[in-house]
Each structure stands twice: as structure tokens, then as C-alpha cells.
């Protein structure tokens, strides 16, 4: 009799143990964010292009008389929404290359700095055609500068986009980038910049686990002497369709075609 009671008690204990463990919260594995695949067909009525000028290395962009060629090119092609000039560095008190391009192309110029001292500033110039009411930026000294223009993209139905840029040299900048973007990707922020090739994989991995509702694509060339690549970060409602390598004289230019998915 006692033996039967003992068996019942043992069975009850095993049952309770199994029930307790089965009721524990399931372990959730964070697999990060992955954007849904965009439509396979491009809707050309909803695309715009941005010209991104960069040597994709640590050299300053304008080294010779390239400004004349760029001015001619911009004056003769009016199809791009904006023109970005990576490393269009300037000496304080002297004419900035991007301001000169703005003057000669009758456009408005902006500058997103990466560094600053008394005499020299390194950064990315931006040329747009309309007057800009919002040039939104953030400056975290010694860490990260981000900035760009809010303007109307002339799509099938015009859409307001904030076209911003930054330069990433170190993975320590990633948390600052995510903090600055905040919910920005919900408000049509499109970021085109450069990242050092040796940290681009880590950038992709970091954003996957720290940002949502975005698409990220990279463009690198196999040309010797390049240690950087272009990245395009968009909200999930946009997609970078292609980056076409081109040259304006000896100046490398990349035509970035972006589609609004709506």
C-alpha cells in the first residue's frame, strides 16, 4: 500500500516539475531586422537619382581643375535631385569648392563637415536646386557629423525626402548613428555616405540588431587604391535600385538610383 502511495507521490512530483518547466517563457532569439524583398520590377515613374562624387579613399576630391568639368556637367544635366561631393574639403576664409560650384550652377550649396580646426574643414558638400527651409544636422564632436537637406522628390506623386550624408571611419560611430537617426527612417530620411571597407560588414550587422524598417546597400569597386565603399540607407518604403559608376573628366562619380515603393 505504502509502495503504491510512494509511486503516486513520485509521479505527482514529476508531473509538477514537467508542468513548471513547460510554463517557463520561451527563449526568444533576436534574429535582427530584415527588410522584405522589394518588387522585382522597377517603377521608373517613382525613381530619382543622386550623383555621388567620391574617390572612395582618404584623398581630397578636388585636386586639379575638376570644378570646371563638374560645373559644365551640372549645367547640362538637370535630372538629378542632388549632387554630393565627398571630401570636398575647404580652407577657412578661402572659397569652398562646393560654394563655387553652387555659384556657377545657380544652385544652393551646403556642407556637412567631418572635422574642423581654425584653418581647414573636411567634409561632404551638397548641391540642390531649390531654396531649403530645413537643413537638418547633428554634430557630435570627435564622433559623428550627420546632415542634409529636406526637399521634394519629383516622383509620380511628389514626396518629401530628407537627403542626408555622413562618413563612417570607425565602428564606434555606429551607436551615435542609430541615436541620431532615431525614428528618422519613418520620416523619409535617405542617407548616402561612405564607410571604410573593413567595417562595412560590422555596420550591416550592427544596424540589423539596432535599427528597424530600413534597407541598406553597399557599393564597392575593385579598383586599386580604394579603401571605402558607398552605403545607401533608406526607409523600407524606398529602395536603392542601382549605383552606376561614371567619370566626369578624371573625377569618379556614382549615379545612385532610388525608388519610392508606393
Amino acid at each position, binding site marked *: 500500500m505504502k509502495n503504491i502511495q510512494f509511486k503516486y507521490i513520485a509521479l505527482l512530483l514529476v508531473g509538477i516539475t514537467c508542468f513548471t518547466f513547460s510554463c517557463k517563457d520561451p527563449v526568444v532569439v533576436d534574429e535582427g531586422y530584415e527588410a522584405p524583398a522589394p518588387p522585382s520590377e522597377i517603377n521608373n515613374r517613382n525613381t530619382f537619382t543622386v550623383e555621388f562624387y567620391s574617390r572612395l579613399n582618404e584623398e581630397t576630391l578636388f585636386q586639379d581643375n575638376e570644378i570646371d568639368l563638374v560645373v559644365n556637367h551640372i549645367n547640362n544635366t538637370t535630372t538629378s535631385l542632388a549632387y554630393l561631393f565627398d571630401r570636398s574639403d575647404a580652407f577657412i*576664409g578661402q572659397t569652398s569648392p562646393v560654394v563655387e560650384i553652387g555659384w556657377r550652377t545657380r544652385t544652393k550649396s551646403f556642407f556637412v563637415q567631418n572635422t574642423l580646426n581654425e584653418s581647414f574643414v573636411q567634409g561632404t558638400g551638397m548641391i540642390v536646386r531649390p531654396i531649403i527651409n530645413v537643413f537638418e544636422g547633428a554634430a557630435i564632436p570627435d564622433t559623428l557629423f550627420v546632415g542634409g537637406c529636406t526637399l521634394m522628390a519629383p516622383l509620380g506623386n511628389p514626396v518629401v525626402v530628407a537627403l542626408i550624408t555622413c562618413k563612417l571611419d570607425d565602428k564606434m560611430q555606429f551607436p551615435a548613428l542609430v541615436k541620431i537617426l532615431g525614428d528618422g527612417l519613418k520620416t523619409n530620411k535617405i542617407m548616402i555616405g561612405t564607410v571604410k571597407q573593413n567595417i562595412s560588414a560590422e555596420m550591416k550587422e550592427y544596424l540589423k540588431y539596432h535599427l528597424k524598417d530600413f534597407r541598406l546597400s553597399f557599393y564597392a569597386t575593385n579598383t586599386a587604391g580604394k579603401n571605402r565603399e558607398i552605403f545607401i540607407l533608406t526607409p523600407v518604403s524606398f529602395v536603392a535600385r542601382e549605383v552606376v559608376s561614371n567619370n566626369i573628366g578624371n573625377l569618379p562619380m556614382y549615379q545612385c538610383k532610388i525608388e519610392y515603393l508606393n
Partner: protein
Amino acid sequence: MILNKNILLILWVIISPAFMAQNLSLRVISMNMKEGGKPANFDANAYSDFIRQYNPDVVVFQEMDNFTTRNGNKDLLTEMAVKLGMFPYYGKAFTYASGDIGNAILSKYPFYNARTIATKPTGASEMRACSWIDLMMPDKRKVRVAVTHLDVSSDEQVRVSMLATINTNILTNNELPTLLIGDFNATPDSDTMNYAKFKWQDIGEGTGNTISSTNPTKRIDYVMGYPKTWIRKSYEIVCNPGLSDHCFIVADVEHL
């Protein structure tokens, strides 16, 4: 004895940054361009030569044309930026003469943020704007510099209403020391300026009249500071009828 030395060392570590902190120092110029630069026949050289002799950090303009028929369809601001080696920002108030008229800013250092708001309260004669830039100086201190041109209406409430809108937009969530510079179309004892002084410090208080440039009898152009802890190092009223009907302000200001 060792304890005392340690205490002194800790105290030094705590208070030394306060002694070493440099004041934020800026030279600013305010220029009302009088119909987009008409007195100087819209000549960028004339204005640039004036500005260059002062080597300012920031220049703010009112009544700046942008590609208008009257200025010869040109971007006078960017032309000056090229000549002076500065960074331009244009803020539109309204469409005029096939182009635009508004405020503008030139900065020696690049700005990382810039905005323009335009407002036309009931009773105002036309749309007016306020534009501002945020910039980081080489010592990494940040400052906001704004320019405005308040309406010329006889009704003080129009300007007060504009200022209220400007205050909301410029000062909300703003931790930067800020300057609001320009043509307020109001004398120091007016309702407009009394309202302005609730929030802003009249850095040029007690200085000379600014209009007209041939016979200055009224002070209506100001350099205002926020918070009210700016220091006036120098404040010069420069009258040049060949450039404008307003006298210009050249001010050296500091903020701790």
C-alpha cells in the same frame, strides 16, 4: 598632510576646467540690404569689400534678393560667399520679381543645422521670415545665430505675434547660446521690444541709432542674446549710404 594634498588635488581637478574654459567669442555683422542691394547697384564687390575689412564670423542680411529681375537675376549671397570664402544660407520670405526676397546668413565656419520659418500674422503687410544656423566653432563650442526682419506694420501686435512665433521655433528644446539679429522695425521703448526683452538680452542697449544711414534718428536694428548672459565686447554702428538706408552693426560678443 598627505590627506590635505589629496584634497587640494581633487579640488584642482574639479575647478580647473572652469578656469580653463574659454568664452565663446563671435564677431557678427547685421546688414539691411535695402531692396536687395539697390543702393550699390547690386554689386557683390561693394558689399564684400565692406565685410572683408571686419573679418566677421557671421554676417546676417535682411532684404536679400535671390534671382530677382531687379538684381539682374543673380544669387548675390553666394557671389559674396565665393568672394569672402564663407558658407551661405538663404532663407526665403516670399516670392518677388520672378525670384525671392528674404533673409540670409554668411558664416566663416560651416553650419551643421539651418532652418527658415515664414509667418504672416493677421494685419501683417507681407510674409516675413526668420532663418537660423547652428555652427560649431573650432574650439567645439556650439552657437545658434538667427536673423529676422519684422513687419513694418503700424500695429505693434503684428510684430509681437511674429516674435512669439520666432521664440517658439528658435528657443524650444534649444540649449545653445543664441543670437537673434536684424531689423525689428521697432524702437527700444516700443511694445515689440518690451516683449522681446522678456526672453532676450538687448546686447546693444544704449548704443546709437541705426536709421537712416544719412541721418540716424531711430534705433530699430538689434543684436539680441539668449540666455541673458552675453557680454558686449564692442558694438559699432557703421553708416554707409552707398550701401544701405540702414546703418550696419558690427559687434563683438562673448558668452561663457
